[in-house]
């Protein structure tokens, strides 16, 4: 026993040194092989682009399979669909029939109970906006769909979590399933659902239940597993039967985490119901926005988009309020009269409205002449602004495209042209570029470590040839080696498999376009989000200012985010780029702030007492310790960027998202699923690499056990 620590430490250093050096040799071999392949590529067509005859007809097989499935199972699914339609239509009917003040009163009562009068007031104002803009009826249709899909998602999630939480075996199956449910773009699985259930609002219900289920399952599993062993043992020693232990000990103890899951599931369900409007199902608010957007009526789409935004905020704050309430364990034993007041008031409004509705028709339907609909004013203002600043906006757009997006996609070697950069590429520039890269790499090896140099070589090579210009074999080789070296050999294999999937399904080119777009957006997010995060970590005021903005952005159904950018920059690559950044930057900000604020106080004190300047404190102490957290944020950012990428296909981005979108309009399940799985693979590989690294690093730093 006594000798073991010694022998351990004696063994440790040689093996770790060996490991770091073996990494060096691996990288040397990989880079030399890559260089040879790049040199060979111009003369070997199969190296430059994946050969077309390697493509397996996986999409066709999928379609044939779907065909069979649809033929066999369609009646069953249609039946299920009809069942779902019953409560949905009933709810929509009730919501349409109820006078609007009654519905608003009920919502206000919920808001009051969840979080007090401020939220209640906000809810009333938000819902009033829907009334006076004349979007009440489509909003209520959306609400009806959401109210059916949420319980469905919660029920599904609850069941999955219950069979998963204490069984590692089931967990091994369910976790990857959840990964795919969350990362396969929603458009992609709308297709098979549509084929099975037929067109109609039920597709929205089913798709959103599937999409909203994973956050519920994940939170619930975490909640159930995190119940402290002491509490469980005390429950067992109190003589609880397994059923009692589950319902009276585990569930109440996990409640606050479960409520977080319910909040996230609610937001996901709303988001998906809105997206499902793309198949043109019913007169809901998602369809209104999409319709206006397609007709390039930006004022109208902004007004309707705001309805969705307000909807999201109201649902988010109310469910969040209930979640916080369950966390505040010490509930107040307020008098019954106080607790019942909001409900009694709401009931009074409902009764009064029902009584007077026949006489006062404006209670049921808001008269058109009372509507406030400033679409023309917005459109005119927009026209003025875009005309006035058109040259400025053109400059911004073109600089971003020519100097940033294009080099990442096609590389300096092709991006530099008289048209875009103002001069042609000369051979000496190439030599200078290579020389500069070599100098930086060598300096880095001398000053930092060989890993830095490897990074420099990869980055400069990538920027020269671009995502689409790099031979595909080299890309797969380098990316999989990164996955292997940063995480472990399993992730390396997964990466290899994922990229080969793109090759054999013939979606390589689109995948590279998506990767390029995603990479560009994520780089901006990391830089900008990191800076905002650092700022927010230093100032409580900035933090308090940023937080509600982040919350709002995160709870926003995705295509609402497109609208403002679409207004100023029209359809195209740049609008997609900005929309992705706007949505995906949030985790970078949050995790950077969280990581920096989470650095142990004692460490900061120790560093300060040694005489660290604030700058040294940030760069030498706080950032290294916060880096694992920041990487988790980066991971989330990549996930968000990929999710948004699909939606931006609506405004003309290229790549896998576009493929999915096209497949959706052709009802081509095979193509849609293949492209969808392609995106899921990119997401999952990135996730495994970043999380693997972050966890290992946190363990090394002793931040987690």
């Amino acid at each position, binding site marked *: 026993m006594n000798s073991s620590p010694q022998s351990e430490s004696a063994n440790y250093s040689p093996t770790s040194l060996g490991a770091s050096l073996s990494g060096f040799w691996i990288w040397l071999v990989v880079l030399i092989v890559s260089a040879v392949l790049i040199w060979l590529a111009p003369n070997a067509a199969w190296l430059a682009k994946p050969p077309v005859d390697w493509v397996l007809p996986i999409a066709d097989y999928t379609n044939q399979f779907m065909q069979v499935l649809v033929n066999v199972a369609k009646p069953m699914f249609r039946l299920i669909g009809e069942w779902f339609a019953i409560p949905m239509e009933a709810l929509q009917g009730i919501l349409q029939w109820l006078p609007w003040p009654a519905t608003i009163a009920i919502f206000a009562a919920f808001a009051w109970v969840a979080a007090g009068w401020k939220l209640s007031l906000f809810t009333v104002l938000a819902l009033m906006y829907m009334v006076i803009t004349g979007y009440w009826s489509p909003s209520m249709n959306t609400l009806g769909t959401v109210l059916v899909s949420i319980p469905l998602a919660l029920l599904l999630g609850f069941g999955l979590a219950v069979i998963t939480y204490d069984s590692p075996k089931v967990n091994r199956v369910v976790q990857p399933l959840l990964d795919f449910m969350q990362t396969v773009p929603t458009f992609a699985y709308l297709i098979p659902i549509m084929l099975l259930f037929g067109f109609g609002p039920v597709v929205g219900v089913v798709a959103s239940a599937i999409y909203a289920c994973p956050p519920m399952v994940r939170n619930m599993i975490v909640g159930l597993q995190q119940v402290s062993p002491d509490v469980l*043992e005390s*429950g067992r020693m*109190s*003589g609880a039967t397994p059923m009692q232990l589950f319902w*009276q000990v585990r569930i109440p103890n996990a409640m606050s985490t479960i409520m977080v899951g319910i909040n996230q599931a609610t937001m996901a369900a709303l988001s998906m119901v809105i997206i499902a409007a793309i198949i043109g199902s019913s007169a809901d608010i998602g369809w209104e926005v999409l319709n206006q957007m397609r007709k390039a009526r930006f004022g109208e789409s902004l007004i309707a988009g705001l309805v969705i935004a307000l909807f999201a905020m109201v649902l988010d704050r109310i469910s969040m309020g209930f979640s916080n309430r369950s966390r505040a364990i010490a509930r107040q*034993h307020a008098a019954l009269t106080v607790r019942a007041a909001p409900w009694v008031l709401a009931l009074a409004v409902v009764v009064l409205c029902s009584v007077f509705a026949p006489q006062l028709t404006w209670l049921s339907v808001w008269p058109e002449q009372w509507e406030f609909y400033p679409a023309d004013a917005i459109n005119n203002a927009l026209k003025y602004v875009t005309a006035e600043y058109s040259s400025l906006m053109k400059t911004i757009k073109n600089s971003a495209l020519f100097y940033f997006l294009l080099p990442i996609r096609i590389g300096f070697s092709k991006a530099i042209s008289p048209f875009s950069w103002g001069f042609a590429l000369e051979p000496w520039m190439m030599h200078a570029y290579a020389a500069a890269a070599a100098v930086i790499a060598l300096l880095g090896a001398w000053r930092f470590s060989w890993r830095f140099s490897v990074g420099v070589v990869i980055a400069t090579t990538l920027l020269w040839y671009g995502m689409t210009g790099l031979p595909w074999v080299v890309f797969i080789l380098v990316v999989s080696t990164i996955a292997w070296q940063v995480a472990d050999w399993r992730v390396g294999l997964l990466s290899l498999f994922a990229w080969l999937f793109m090759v054999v399904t013939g979606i390589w080119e689109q995948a590279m376009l998506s990767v390029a777009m995603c990479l560009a957006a994520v780089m901006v997010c990391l830089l900008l989000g990191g800076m905002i995060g650092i700022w927010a970590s230093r100032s409580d005021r900035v933090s308090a200012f940023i937080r509600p903005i982040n919350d709002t952005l995160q709870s926003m159904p995705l295509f609402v985010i497109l609208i403002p950018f679409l207004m100023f920059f029209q359809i195209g690559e740049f609008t997609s780029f900005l929309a992705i950044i706007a949505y995906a930057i949030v985790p970078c900000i949050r995790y950077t702030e969280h990581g920096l604020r989470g650095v142990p106080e004692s460490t900061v004190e120790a560093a300060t007492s040694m005489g660290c300047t604030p700058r040294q404190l940030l760069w030498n102490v706080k950032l290294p310790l916060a880096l694992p957290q920041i990487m988790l944020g980066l991971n989330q950012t990549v996930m968000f960027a990929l999710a948004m990428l699909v939606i931006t296909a609506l405004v003309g981005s290229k790549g896998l998202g576009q493929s999915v979108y096209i497949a959706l309009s052709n009802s081509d399940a095979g193509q849609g699923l293949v492209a969808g799985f392609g995106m899921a693979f990119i997401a999952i590989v990135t996730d495994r690499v970043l999380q693997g690294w972050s966890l290992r690093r946190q363990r090394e730093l002793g931040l987690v056990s």
Partner: protein
Amino acid sequence: MSTLKDVSGTHSAAESSVKISCRSVWKVYGDNVSQRYPALAGQHSDPAALRKALLSEGLIVAASDVSFDVRSGEIFIIMGLSGSGKSTMVRCLSRLVEPTAGEVLLDGEDLLSANDAELIKIRRHRMGMVFQNFGLMPHLTVLENIGFPLKLQGKSSRERVARAKEVIELVGLEGREDSFPRELSGGQQQRVGIARSLAVEPDVWLLDEPFSALDPLIRRQMQDEFLRLQTLLNKTIVFITHDFLEALRLADRIAIMKDGQLVQLGTPTELVLNPANDYVAEFTKDVPRDRVITVGELIENASSDVPVDAPRIASKTTLDVVMPMFESHPGGVVVDSEGVTLGVVTPARVIQALAQHQSSS
């Protein structure tokens, strides 16, 4: 091993009925223990050899061949440092942990053969347990927490409240009935834990490091409180601690564990005076001898020159109490047990005893 038997042998006179009995209990962790343990146990009949074989196979032995009896109404303390297997042992007694091998008898019945329903019944009516981190339900009030075991039994709300109020009074928590655990201090939370464990009126009371999470001043208070409760209730207690001084203060008998093995079992005095090995001696070396040794252990045969006016004192009196008496009675004191003279203790004998233990440590 031989010291162990000797020590418990000296106490056989005071032995009352055995409440809990542990017979060669093993708890082994690792992959496939259910197959690998019996295989190895078949090859090695000697416990020491078996332990060696298990460890060499990379299995974790949390309890190896532990045997002891807990008598009715005694405070039996299992003392050990972290990883010594003491928590495992108390969990084997309540079957929160399933022993790999061995027997646990409760009132002579085999606890390990009880099925799930029987086990739940035993836990509901015959056992109470207190946990280091309290194990309170954060969503229930003090009153609801204490009534929780009764609720699980399906008792009516009126019954639960009535019983909970009784125990609340017992542990001195009146006025906090409607508080939630988070609103209470650590000491108060543990009072709730104690009250809850007593709500079902168990006869076996298991306490797993109940005071370790409290600060020293509160810990001391709670120990006194605990002794007061025990004089009232007279439960059979198995108490786990890593604090030797706490064990000395509270125990009737102490079992010291190390690496899953029982190192020594005896009364506090026996441990201090005759530590079985260096490991135990390490704990006992700083304990003032005069507070542990009793006059009863130093009796010389009653000789003729007993001073007539010598004070008579009880045999359980410790030396720190007796020594001041020698100032006025240099001839010694008479030791007596309920009126019967047992013998004489002289200053010389006391000095000899203290000197002896001083040098041995």
